[in-house]
């Protein structure tokens, strides 16, 4: 570029010395190239707009197509534009998508690539780096675009058909170990009246049709409220299995939550991990809720939550259990069960909760954990691999 300026100065001297009109034209052309290319480049690259089109939520194993819409919003063309889209390495290898293109005024080009969702997580897409230059090699210019697009990959969900979680409610006094409740909103059929049946459950239309008293039969409901406690304290996992065991715990939590919500039960979640959206909180708690929307919120949280080391799990269980409704079920998912956690679980049992313990990384033989848990009336399970969840299918 310095050559160009030097030449312009020399050209001016030569033109002034010889007073040849044509040399002045050349001077204008050289200066125009030098000056206008800068203006051109500055204006054109500032008007380039990039927009991503994609589905921002996915499950593991899915491939998410992303379309980058690169549009030149200026009246000036761009002879070349290098588009460098950065992508997390967990979603794409190599971790970028690059292309060279040229853009005419108001032209839009679409660039497509796919993200391979292999691990759950909250991934930010971009930034997009744009680089362009002039036609004569005088200058290059780049621009960095960050628009905060993100992709949420949910944890894997394993359908649990037979979870077998215990529950207790304040209603009824059926003398069974596992109490059965009937949901009056879920009609299953009718049967003949028996002594002791409530008059409110008589099906009058069927009685009129058959000429004998008929009562409604309802689907049983075994639990009304469950709360999942998830341990994501990094220090409480074995260092060599911290990632696999914690992911397994998250998968277990997501599967149980999904299962219970599919059974139309209320589920809550407390976790001592780090939520990127609220990094200053020591723990994250989602109150109990039902329905698809609640499940998606719960899965969103489980997708983005990360390991942390600020809050001991036993402390979380102790604090969160204070806000639970009596008679619910506490599903405690942790790496290992130590004395402090057992103390908290005994306390919950005394307060009237049913507790299920699921360990993913026990430091002692699981039989010992199971024996100790059974001594305090807690049902214990071990999940070592995702396949272990099959025992509940």
């Amino acid at each position, binding site marked *: 570029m310095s050559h160009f300026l030097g030449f312009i100065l020399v050209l001016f001297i030569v033109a002034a010395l010889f007073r040849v*009109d*044509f*040399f*002045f034209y050349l001077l204008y*052309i050289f200066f125009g190239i030098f000056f206008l290319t800068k203006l051109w480049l500055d204006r054109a690259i500032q008007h380039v707009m990039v927009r991503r089109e994609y589905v921002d939520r996915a499950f593991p194993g899915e491939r998410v197509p992303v379309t980058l819409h690169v549009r030149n919003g200026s009246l000036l063309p761009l002879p*070349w534009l*290098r588009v460098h889209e950065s992508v997390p390495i967990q979603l794409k290898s190599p971790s970028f998508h690059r292309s060279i293109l040229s853009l005419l005024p108001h032209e839009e080009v679409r*660039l497509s690539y796919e993200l391979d969702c292999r691990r759950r997580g909250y991934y930010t897409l971009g930034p997009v780096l744009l680089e362009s230059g002039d036609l004569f090699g005088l200058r290059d210019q780049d621009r960095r675009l960050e628009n905060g697009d993100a992709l949420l990959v949910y944890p894997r969900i394993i359908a649990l058909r037979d979870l077998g979680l215990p529950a207790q409610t304040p209603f009824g006094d059926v003398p069974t170990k596992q109490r059965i409740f009937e949901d009056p909103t879920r009609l299953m059929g009718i049967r003949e009246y028996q002594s002791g049946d409530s008059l409110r459950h008589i099906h009058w239309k069927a009685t009129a049709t058959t000429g004998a008293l008929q009562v409604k039969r309802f689907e049983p409901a075994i639990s009304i409220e469950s709360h999942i406690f998830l341990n994501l304290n990094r220090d409480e996992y074995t260092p060599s299995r911290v990632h696999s065991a914690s992911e397994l715990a998250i998968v277990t939590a997501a599967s149980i939550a999904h299962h219970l919500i599919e059974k139309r039960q209320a589920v809550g979640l407390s976790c001592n991990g780090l939520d990127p959206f609220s990094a200053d909180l020591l723990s994250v708690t989602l109150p109990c809720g039902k329905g698809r929307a609640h499940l998606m919120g719960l899965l969103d949280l489980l997708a983005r939550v990360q390991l942390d080391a600020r809050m001991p799990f036993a402390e979380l269980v102790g604090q969160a259990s204070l806000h639970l409704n009596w008679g619910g079920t506490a599903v405690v998912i942790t790496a290992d069960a130590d004395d402090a956690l057992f103390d908290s679980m005994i306390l919950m049992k005394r307060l009237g909760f049913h507790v299920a313990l699921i360990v993913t990384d026990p430091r002692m033989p699981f039989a010992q954990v199971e024996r100790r848990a059974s001594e305090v009336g807690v049902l214990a399970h071990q999940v070592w691999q995702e396949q272990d969840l099959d025992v509940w299918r």
Partner: protein
Amino acid sequence: MSGDEAMMAEPATTGVLAQDQAPKAAQTRSVPGWERTAVDEAIRPLAVSGMLTCIAVSIAQFVNAISSEWPGTFFVLLVLAVSLESIHSRRLLSRLNLYPRDRFRYRFVEWVVILLVVRFGPYLKYGSERLWADIAVWSVNVGAFFDIGFIVNSLLIVVFWALANTLSQALDELEASPMERRLPVTDPNHYLRSTMPRHGRINRQASLSRITGVFLGGGVALLVIAGLVQVDVRDLVTLQHLRSSGIILNVLVYFLIGFLLISHARFSILKANWTIQGIPMLGHVAQRWLALVMIFLLGLGIISTLLPVGYSVGILETVSTIIQWIIYALVQFVFLILFIVSSLLGLLMSLFRGPEAAFTPPMQRAEPPPPPSSVSAGPAPWWQLVRSLIFWTVLVGIIGYSLYHFMGYRWAFLQRLAPGVLLGWLRRIWRGLRRGTGRLATRIRQEIARRLTPRQAEGAPGRLRFLSLHRLSPRDKVLYFYVSVLRRSAKQGFGRPKSRTPLEYEETLRRELPEALEQVHELTDAFIEARYSAHELDSSDSTIAQRAWRSVKRALSGRRRRAARARSDAVVE
């Protein structure tokens, strides 16, 4: 959706596999084989030769203006032919990969033929009669064959040949070499590439700078020569020549080709980088590039023709006229204000007078000064002034902008030249010089000492061993005493190996010189202090060491005598 968009949006550009395959696809799509051959074999050589021929045209015109006899047309054609030959031969030699001997033979033959053409070509114009006459002269005087015209022509041809070679080579270097591309680990060339400097990457920016340098340097030469053709040199000296208008065709062609070549080089560099990095090139980037260059240059040319290239009014006169007009406008404005104020005052005063005031004559507006007279003798038309104004504004703008940026690129250097900094800079240079000469002198002394040491060890006669102890510092004295003991002990066969420290060697000395145990310890301690301490030593330290040294020296002499006596006794027995 256009065809381009459809192509870009197709799933072929997606995924990992597509990412790897895309460069090849893009390359084959954007640069077909025939186009590549055409660019390498025809367009580039013609462009380079054309540029150089444009310079040759101006040279021919200039020389012909001085001497019409000189065969200018032949020279121009020769430059064209030699440039093409230079490019062709360079490409051929790089392809054939000949041995140096064969390469030299090729070049030798090539240059003999070129020089023969340079020598005998002009006779196409001069005629055969002159050829025969010259041959007759050469037969008598061989030196006449190499006359001044032939030598100058040959030198010019050599310059053009070299320029064509340089440009062609630089343009070829812009292409991506297969070795530069990332190779798989299993490729036999992978290791070779990884051990090459810069991993086989070529510095293309340097090649582009070379092309730009040749283009701009040639442009300056061309402009000066073309200017000299347009203007009489005598008028140039007195600066009394008139403006010359019209397009100078060869200059236009030169710069047009030059811009296209620079732009092409720029595109080649980018394309090579993209190819090496494996970035797919989508759409018609190459075609659009060429079109945009043409449109840009055309647009710029049109704009340039609309701008004034001359002036009827000088810059000082223009500035003066503008200032006069500004003053005139200000004065008009002031007079207008005064007129309004005085009118209002008059109206106000008339309210306080009697009815006779109605007969007061109306107030006359004061006459402002006349507008500024036109510059120079006669009145200049307004458009001449406007054209001159635009011309000077544009020119001053260009010069100011160029100087600003020109200085901006060198600002750090200029800051270093500030008066205070300049003195410091000179001082540092002076210190550096002194330090450098000091180091040089030390090096010379060490080298001399190194060369003399073997001779001293061999006991070569005539060596100079004068050392004044009085001139040495206390530290050097202590060092000298210790080294002296080492030398003497070495002569007696128990010198200090380099691997032993002074303290370790002290044990040896104490074993060999039991009569001087204390002195050996004192001398060793003094040496360690002198050698490894940072504090100053005074004369008392060196005196103690000297006393110890003398005792040790005596003990060494005694040991030597005893050994000699023992040897003589052994011989007698």
